[in-house]
């Protein structure tokens, strides 16, 4: 059994860079690296989006750490990196970057996918969307 490691799991006000994640998870015993980047898009529900703001509950840094530790414990020999950005973001900015390195690709794909899904489900972060038509909404609050 190989030990799994959470290299980093954070909430960040600074822009996120995929290169940082890739450099952090790589290891001589890992033959596969799978990464995900959640990027701000310019439309939602048929409306044009100008910008987004993400805010986090004070417990978010702790929760993202717990989530990453759980996923690490579920897989053998993975190295995980995850960061969620908060603050004002522009179209094309990365809001979430997750990366998983593992000896083989199956585990890297699975760990990265679970990491992203569980962050979205459990980390207390909210997204305020600013539309081109002047409308503003908190995503997911009403449906």
């Amino acid at each position, binding site marked *: 059994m190989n030990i799994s490691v959470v290299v980093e799991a954070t909430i960040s006000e600074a822009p996120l860079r995929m290169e940082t994640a890739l450099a952090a998870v790589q290891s001589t015993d890992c033959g596969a690296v799978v990464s995900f980047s959640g990027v701000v898009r310019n439309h939602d529900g048929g409306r044009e989006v100008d910008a987004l703001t993400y805010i986090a509950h004070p417990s978010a840094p702790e929760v993202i750490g717990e989530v990453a530790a759980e996923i690490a414990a579920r897989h053998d020999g993975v190295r995980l990196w995850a960061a969620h950005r908060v603050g004002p973001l522009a179209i094309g900015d990365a809001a979430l970057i997750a990366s998983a390195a593992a000896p083989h690709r199956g585990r890297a794909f699975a760990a990265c996918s679970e990491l992203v899904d569980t*962050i979205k489900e459990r980390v207390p972060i909210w997204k305020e969307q600013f539309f081109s038509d002047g409308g503003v909404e908190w995503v997911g*609050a*009403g449906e």
Partner: protein
Amino acid sequence: MLIRYFAAAKAAAGVEQETLEFSDGVALTDVIYHLIELHPGTEVGHTPTLAKILARSSFLRNEVALRDFGEPLGPADVIDILPPFAGG
């Protein structure tokens, strides 16, 4: 009891936080009914009413998940109202 609203809950309540008096041992259910009465609001643009948001929110008591809505709460408790998360 300190009530802290986040994201859409803050937009619907119109305040970030407020201190309210309840009888000692009050349950979260009764706190929620009171908050709905206090902030009836109307839907403005895409912000639902606080009642609708509360129905879909999760709650923290002193930053720990509060799942038992009947649990007795005290005046020193801090209750956080967390609308559905939308990270990623």
